[in-house]
């Protein structure tokens, strides 16, 4: 069964690359352009993994994280935070709010893909 990956990011310029990379891995890709859209998408269809940007309009990645983890059904979806906020405190906050891992922009796409694979493998 192929995995479904939700990519939530408000920047179309990164969405192009991420979408390409995930599809190349054979995943089904869902896209959200802000936090609220991400939550709506998830309510509609639970993805296998979420690539979550932090700085998004409407709801931030942190908000999304927190709301998901507050619900029983979404306790175990792996969340990989992609963030430009490089401060230790921001990273700590993301992890505390329930993200499984994070990647600091700019990141190597190879590493990203590897991380996604690992995270999905450990769930499966």
């Amino acid at each position, binding site marked *: 069964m192929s995995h479904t990956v939700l990519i939530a990011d408000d920047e179309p310029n*990164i969405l192009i*690359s991420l979408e*390409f990379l995930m599809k*190349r891995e054979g995943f089904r890709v869902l896209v959200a352009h802000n936090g609220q859209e991400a939550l709506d998408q998830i309510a509609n269809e639970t993805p296998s993994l979420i690539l979550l940007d932090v*700085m998004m309009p409407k709801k931030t990645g942190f908000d999304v994280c927190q709301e998901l983890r507050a619900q029983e059904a979404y306790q175990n979806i792996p969340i990989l935070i992609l963030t*430009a906020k490089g401060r230790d405190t921001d990273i700590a906050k993301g992890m505390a709010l329930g993200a499984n891992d994070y990647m600091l922009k*700019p*990141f190597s796409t190879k590493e990203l893909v590897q991380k996604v694979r690992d995270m999905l493998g450990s769930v499966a």
Partner: protein
Amino acid sequence: MKKFDPRVALGVAIIGVICLVWLLVTGGLIWSTLAESERSAIVNAVGPRLFLLIGMWAISLVAVGAALRWLVGYFMTAPARLYEEAQVLLGTNVKRQLVPSGSLENRQLTNLINQLVQQRESLHEEMDSRVQEASRNTELEKSRLAALMSELTKSVVVCNLDGRILLYNNRARMQFRTFSSTPTVGGVEMIGLGRSIYAVFERTLVAHALENIQRRLQRGAATPSAQFVTTTPSGQLLRVQVAPVRAILENTTDKPEMTGFVLMLDNITRDFEVESYKDRALSTLTEGSRAALGNMQAALEVLEYPEVDDAMHKRLLDVLRDETQVLAKRITDLKTSSAENFMSRWPLEDMLGADLIAATTKRIESLGLVVEEPEIDKSLWLKVESFSLMQAFQGLAQRLHSVFGVQSMRLRLQGANTNHVHLDLMWHGEAKCTEQLVGWEVEPLKIGNESTSLTVQDVIERHSGALWCERDNDKGLVFFRFVLPLASPQEQLDNAALLKTESRPEYYDFDLFQSTEQSRSLEDCNLTELAYTVFDTETTGLNPAQGDEIIQMGAMRIVNGKLLQNEGFDQLVDPKRKIPPESIPIHGIQPEMVKGQPTIDKVLPAFHAFAKDTVLVAHNAAFDMRFLQLKEQSTGIVFEQPVLDTLLLSAVLHPNQASHRLEAIAERFNITILGRHTAMGDAMVTAEVFLRMIPLLAEQGIYTLRQAREAAQKTYYARLKY
């Protein structure tokens, strides 16, 4: 006439009786031994001469009386008098020499007492002069401190534990004035001697800081202080440092107790803006660039995959182009907007442009060159490092002289835009703005025979300024133009205001350390310890009910028995009606003087704030109060504080005087009248009069506000109503 002394009579009587008894007993004894014939012979001989015997007895008694009287005077009255006089000397400080009289011993005693009095006198004098010396030193130190404070560039306010202000410097006063949210009418101050600091800062903020200090004191910290940041009503950001004022200890092992606190204020609004701007800029640079770089890196890496089709290839290239542009734009924006804020700054000071020009002129003249009358916009304040700037001018002038033989030059200062000024060094000449001239910019400056390592370029950089050479062909002028930063408007205002106010060391009253908040009502307070606002109004006429209006208000404050010369309220008021020409000679206020002045509904709130927590004092207060009361409805400002009237108090003090006009009273008290019939002038005279009345009222047993008001009400004039 000398008083008859009963002791003399008693003495005479006793001696008379003794003589008589002696005569009778002796006579009786002789009589008993005589024969009958002898007895009759004696009777015959003495009988007819008995009056002689009695006469002689009486005469000797008179002689005895005289002797006794002399003896009493000599040995008894003189010491008694001496006793009384010595008692007077003992009871008072009268300096008087006693006249020696009476016996030798008495005279010696008198001389001794005189010497003792002399000695006491010289001891007194010595003590007095020492006390004077000591208090002069204290006064001197106090005013030295106050003078020092007034020169400080930091705002300092000292309060007692109740938060009453007992010392502040001019800087603090100016700063608070700009913070005030009320319109600056009448020069109303938010701070003043005896006023509460809590009018400015929230009580809880200060209390919290004091608690922290108290804790540190108890822990034995050497320099306990605390800080807080607060916003003012006008939205400025203030950093306040609080330090304790500790009691001087007699016993060094005691823990020092806090008797007050010092507030040091920094307006950090600007710093804060710069800092937060830097933060923002930094985060835009890092986090913003991270995102862009992330997008680029991802796009680049994806490009390498063979699966990428042409359309995708093009989209990825667009991403790269896009993000590169985003980054470039970000950096350009940052560069232009933050040039000022990011420059690591040389400490620049605010300086009046005219001052800088004057000093620079002197410097250039010291090289033996002529500097013509400068062209200056005198309102300009610069932000400069004056020393190096003057060196640059001097160096350039010297070069001009040595290279082109320029003898005379001229300085010009004019505003360039909202942030910069042009400061030009001009000379007449044919010189072109050659590379030679421009080259001077980077060569080390030489002034007189001394070389420095400083270059003109360094100086320009310190000011984030610019320098170029320009020709004005029409005037045949060549000039170096320095572009220099203008002091920001806020700072300009501060300095202009500071300049106007002399730094008189008057803003302190350490006696307030001793006074604590009154728990008694104002009514029961002593007249000496109350704070007063003494005020006067000038009006268009005498009938407020028939449309007469206030055109000027003046007021002074009395705190702790002292008239505060620096804290006055002086404001013209636009009456919004015609000023009757016949009233103009009285108050001297021409109609054009009140044009553009605030109206009474602006002035009354300010005056109300000025008079907060004080007793109002006015001469013929009923008149002024009537004007104020008639405005209660329209302004909503109600003066609820007690009012004292110097006219009524004068009637209390001098009921037999015909006139209780202010001039007459002032004359009685020997007060010089300046500016009578301006509101401020009259308020000042009234205040002086009132201050002199307080001790006189006390002599009549009138000590408290209640007593003063009751006494005033009883006087005849109290029935007078306007």
